[in-house]
């Protein structure tokens, strides 16, 4: 008799029961509860990751390794030729000032773009007396550009132990050794003269007709100016509107040639009432003349 089933064919498998077992059903339900789900999918992994990273970093050797690694990468990026700055160009400065700026900036070229602080450089250069304004621009792969605006020297201020060059606003530009070095600049003296440089400039401008005789201006009591001419002649100017007073003196000069006479001091401190102080010879002469008029003097 033939066997019902051949030996090679296995018995048909028992049909799979689609029903979940009690345990898998319960686990499924627990898994579907929102709190547990959030804990397992979010809280536990994040805690694990943060904890592991913290554990890894807490070792000081590894911290050093990590720092070295970061430093390597940053330096390799900084050292790239695209970020190198090889030179510095200074425009608008005299050679002397340019040298001073170069000394002041203290950058060893070539330098990386990351190592340069334009704001810092600008602050340093602006600290120089002779510099009115500076614009610092950095070109990538190029140069450090400094566009300098120099202060214009306007006057020379003679003080007790020094000669200083000031600009229009009264800021010191430089110390100089000799007055002869800049004979084109007018001279001012007196304490507090630097605070009124602008006024002095207008006075110098007004005094142009007597320029050949002008020696300089002297600040008196930090409030008013004296105009000093050669032959020690002095014009004392008021605090208010000194230029008007000076122009009035110049008008008197034009009309009566007052400055060429023996008058050491013309006092304009009260503009309403100009006073002239005569020299000793002139007084003697005046007295003599008056005596003659009265017939008192003898020939």
């Amino acid at each position, binding site marked *: 008799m033939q066997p019902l089933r051949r030996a090679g064919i296995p018995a048909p498998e028992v049909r799979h029961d689609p*029903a*979940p077992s009690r345990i898998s059903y319960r686990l499924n339900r627990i898994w579907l509860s929102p709190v547990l789900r959030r804990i397992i999918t979010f809280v536990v992994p994040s805690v694990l990751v943060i904890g592991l990273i913290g554990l890894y970093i807490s070792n000081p050797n590894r911290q050093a390794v990590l720092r070295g690694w970061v430093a390597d990468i940053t330096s390799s990026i900084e050292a790239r030729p695209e970020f190198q700055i090889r030179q510095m160009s200074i425009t608008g400065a005299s050679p002397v000032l340019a040298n001073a700026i170069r000394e002041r900036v203290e950058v060893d070229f070539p330098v990386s773009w990351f190592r340069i602080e334009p704001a810092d450089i600008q602050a340093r250069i602006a600290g120089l007396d002779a510099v009115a304004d500076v614009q610092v621009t950095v070109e990538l792969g190029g140069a450090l550009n400094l566009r300098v605006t120099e202060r214009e020297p306007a006057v020379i201020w003679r003080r007790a132990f020094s000669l200083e060059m000031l600009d229009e606003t009264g800021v010191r530009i430089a110390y100089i050794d000799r007055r002869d070095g800049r004979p084109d600049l007018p001279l001012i003296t007196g304490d507090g003269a630097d605070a009124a440089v602008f006024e002095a400039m207008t006075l110098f401008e007004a005094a142009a007709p007597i320029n050949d005789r002008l020696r300089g201006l002297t600040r008196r009591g930090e409030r008013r100016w004296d105009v000093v001419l050669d032959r020690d002649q002095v014009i004392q100017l008021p605090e208010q509107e000194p230029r008007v007073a000076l122009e009035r003196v110049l008008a008197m000069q034009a009309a009566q040639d007052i400055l060429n006479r023996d008058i050491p001091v013309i006092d304009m401190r009260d503009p309403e009432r100009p006073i002239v102080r005569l020299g000793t010879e002139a007084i003697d002469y005046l007295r003599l003349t008056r005596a003659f008029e009265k017939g008192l003097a003898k020939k």
Partner: protein
Amino acid sequence: MSDLYETQRGMRQIRKAAMQRGIVAILDLGTSKATCLVLRFDGDVGDMGDGVGPMAGQSQFRIIGAATTRARGMRHGEIEVMQETERAVRTVVQAAQKMAQVRVDHAIVSFSGANPRSYGLTGEIDINGQEVTESDVAGVLGSCDMPDIGSHRAVLHAQPVNFALDHRSGLSDPRGQIGNSLTTDMHLLAVDRDVVRNILHCIKRCDLELAGLASSAYVSGIAAMVEDEQKLGAACIDLGAGTTGVSIFLRGHMIYADTVRIGGLHVSQDISRGLGIPMTLAERIKTVHGGLVATGRDDRDMIELSGETGDWEHDRREISRSELIGIMRPRVEEILEEVRERLDVAGFDDLPSQKIVLTGGASQVPGLAGLAARILGQNVRLGRPLRVQGLPQAATGPGFSSAVGLSLFASHPQDECWDFEIRDGRYPARSLRRAVKWFKENW
């Protein structure tokens, strides 16, 4: 009746809690399939605009998970093998949870078996020309005489269907009206207690909390009938696999429910026996080739029967479709005649309208409407469940009427008599006595 009150009230509390949480599972335990729908309640959305109203409360919820599986261990809508039924419930609940991606803790269950029987109750109280308050309603509901339903029976539904104030009847809500005597008609549906206990136990074993129970005859009526049919009077016949549920609605309330313990499975059994083929094949032939009205063409339509007995003659048979119809038709006729009997007992012919709606899985047999019209009356139509939001296309057939109806029931439950506070007449006397006792002890 009071312990049942307690359980039903407890279930109502759980249902409220579940609605608060917003997630409820609907579990329809049938004889051939178990269906689970996961409902998400979004609260009252109000008017949806463009003339669309709240749509009978359907817009309140959305089905976010649905699963169906073959029921196991069930017979005539009752649990026969607890472990098997439990497995089926676990399968279907897990699948629905997987689709919904949410865990459900509360389930509302409907079942078809347990020999439901309807009782009509009447109660009356005197209200002395006062305004009817809610406690009066509770009082009149409590005054109904409890019929003798038997010690092994339990009350599944107890719904007030009508109120009458003096001689004015047909009130749906008597509160605020003034009269002398308040009368109510209550419909009470009793089922076998052990069957309900088994179902409770089964749900408990699946780690779910029961938030409500309903008869599937009732809930499939809610889903398959349109509102005016429920208002004017109609019967819904739910042709299931193991049982056929009958429910009669009038004025929007169920007034009668019953089941016939024959269903589609018996048709398959007849085919299996008559043709000598396995049950699965019989079921398949029934669903693919079945019919109820034979025509001349059906004699030439041959159906191949396969078999594995080894007898070539037996395994290679062919039958004509008219033979199959000849087997199926008597059984369906029997079912419908049983239904006719129940309807006659219930006095269905006295209703103002005799509309009959056929639904359930077995109602898909071609030609059923014609056959039912001959037995039950002309006014017959085939009913499908209402469309609700999120219901998968696969679950829109007539076999899912009770599941859909149960979701509607869950969102809009009918007032049951245990929703009202029971008026305890002895309460003032007792508390007075307690006060006197307290005084005596302390002074």
